[in-house]
């Protein structure tokens, strides 16, 4: 096909947009924790970016996108990005594709912070993060996008509902189970120390998500534009739905509004290149309500999956995967879903989502358990009481 400068311009811009989402998650989370853990929480996002960036160049990319080995993992030909010069893949530079995909791997790890916020040891997070991205993210990316067995199955995941959101959401839950509740959880309130910081994070996420979803078209064309507008619509519908649902139960919080927007964004992610704008209203609105309910369920259960990655990314991603199988419309992305009579697609979606869910949850549980039993995942009681900013970083967020 040859390089297309327009497609390349878009993939470069989209990569920048998605890159910003990782610190965006950090701010989103950082505002929700207590003041004494603000820096820790934001820093773990930056660290996720730094660790995954280096790992991706060294061998993450090749594990994900190297030539397929038995449907489960990529070969090692791109180790250290060897042999990738300035040439193109499709209509964009191969290195542009590498960089774009890298930003997805990075943010996925950053989302996981939710399950261990305010209590994880810095050194253990680094170790865990490095292993998790290698053992969970890279295989999943290969299965779905790298020519692995889920791709073979015909499962659709436009921009990472399964690979990014189901995997991170359920992994966060697994970690939360292993690391245990924060001291005082359920006994006294743990109010967000700066909701404006969370709103800034949300703004960056909404903004970056245009790169996430519309960039996943890998071309600057009508499909990318479709992905962009359904992304925005689902976010809006999700925000309104969660707001109304929480209004019904009490006060319509601004935190609920942006959580709903993220829920909508998550749910539209796998569907963005397959559904039309009207469907995206439904997908977003249902996401807002389902994820809000999941959050209430989690709180009811007393699970301290602290910043709701499970409720928003896990459950939102699951709904998105299924919704793709429901609403996919041939004129948009060449595939049809349940409402157009295609049961098979619907089933493929469920199998893919379920497999990713089980794989991510199980491997994370084991990995977290091993780390916890060896080097220890959690800080000491005193360190937690004092806060991670001082105990892990020797810093205070605000003077």
């Amino acid at each position: 096909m040859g390089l297309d400068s327009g497609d390349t311009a878009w993939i470069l811009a989209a990569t920048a947009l998605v890159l910003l989402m990782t610190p965006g998650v950090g701010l989103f989370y950082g505002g929700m924790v207590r003041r004494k853990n603000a820096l820790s929480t934001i820093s773990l996002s930056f660290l996720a970016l730094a660790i995954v960036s280096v790992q991706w160049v060294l061998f993450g990319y090749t594990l994900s996108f190297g030539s397929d080995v038995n449907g489960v993992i990529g070969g090692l030909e791109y180790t250290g990005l060897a042999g990738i010069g300035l040439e193109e893949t499709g209509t964009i530079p191969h290195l542009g594709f590498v960089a774009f995909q890298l930003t997805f791997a990075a943010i996925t790890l950053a989302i996981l912070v939710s399950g261990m916020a305010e209590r994880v040891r810095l050194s253990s997070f680094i170790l865990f993060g490095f292993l998790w991205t290698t053992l969970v993210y890279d295989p999943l990316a290969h299965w779905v996008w790298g020519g692995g067995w889920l791709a073979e199955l015909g499962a659709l995941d436009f921009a990472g509902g399964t690979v990014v959101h189901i995997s991170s959401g359920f992994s966060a839950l697994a970690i939360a189970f292993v690391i245990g509740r924060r001291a005082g959880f359920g006994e006294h309130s743990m109010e967000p120390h700066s909701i404006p910081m969370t709103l800034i994070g949300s703004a960056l996420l909404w903004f970056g998500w245009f790169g996430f979803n519309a960039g996943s078209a890998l071309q600057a064309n009508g499909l990318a534009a479709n992905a962009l507008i359904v992304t925005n619509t689902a976010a809006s519908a999700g925000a309104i739905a969660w707001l109304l649902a929480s209004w019904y139960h009490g006060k319509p919080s601004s935190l609920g509004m942006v959580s709903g927007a993220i829920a909508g964004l998550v749910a539209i992610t796998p569907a963005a290149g397959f559904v039309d704008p009207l469907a995206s209203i439904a997908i977003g609105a249902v996401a807002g309500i389902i994820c809000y309910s999941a959050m209430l369920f989690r709180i009811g259960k007393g699970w301290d999956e602290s910043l709701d990655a499970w409720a928003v990314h896990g459950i939102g991603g699951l709904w998105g995967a299924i919704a793709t199988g429901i609403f996919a419309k041939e004129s948009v992305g060449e595939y049809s879903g349940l409402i157009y009579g295609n049961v098979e697609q619907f089933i493929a979606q469920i199998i893919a989502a379920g497999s990713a869910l089980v794989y991510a949850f199980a491997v994370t549980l084991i990995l977290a358990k091993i780390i916890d039993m060896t080097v220890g995942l959690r800080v000491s009681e005193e360190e937690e009481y004092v806060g991670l900013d001082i105990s892990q970083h020797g810093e205070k967020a605000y003077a």
Partner: protein
Amino acid sequence: MKMITAVVRPERFERVMEELENEGYIALTATEVKGRGEQKGIKLQFRGRTMEVDLLDKMKIEIVVDENEVDRVIETITSAARTGKIGDGRIFVIPVEKSVRIRTGEIIS
């Protein structure tokens, strides 16, 4: 009248407020402060060294009540704020010679 000044853990502040309310002591003034106790705060181990975090966040509560209420207020605060661990805080009782309600200008007792 006496001013009861209590320095408590911030995570116990809500409970202290509630218990005081249950006992009928509604009015109070609260301030975010930092404190260091006789034990010099909390010691952390870090790569073989000991690091001291001596200034910890606390909440200060000031309640002005009649002399004969003092003990009940102290008891209420003490039982609501106590965890039994270092850092639970102190209560000080200070004499108040006059108390004025600004809204009406009236002098209370």
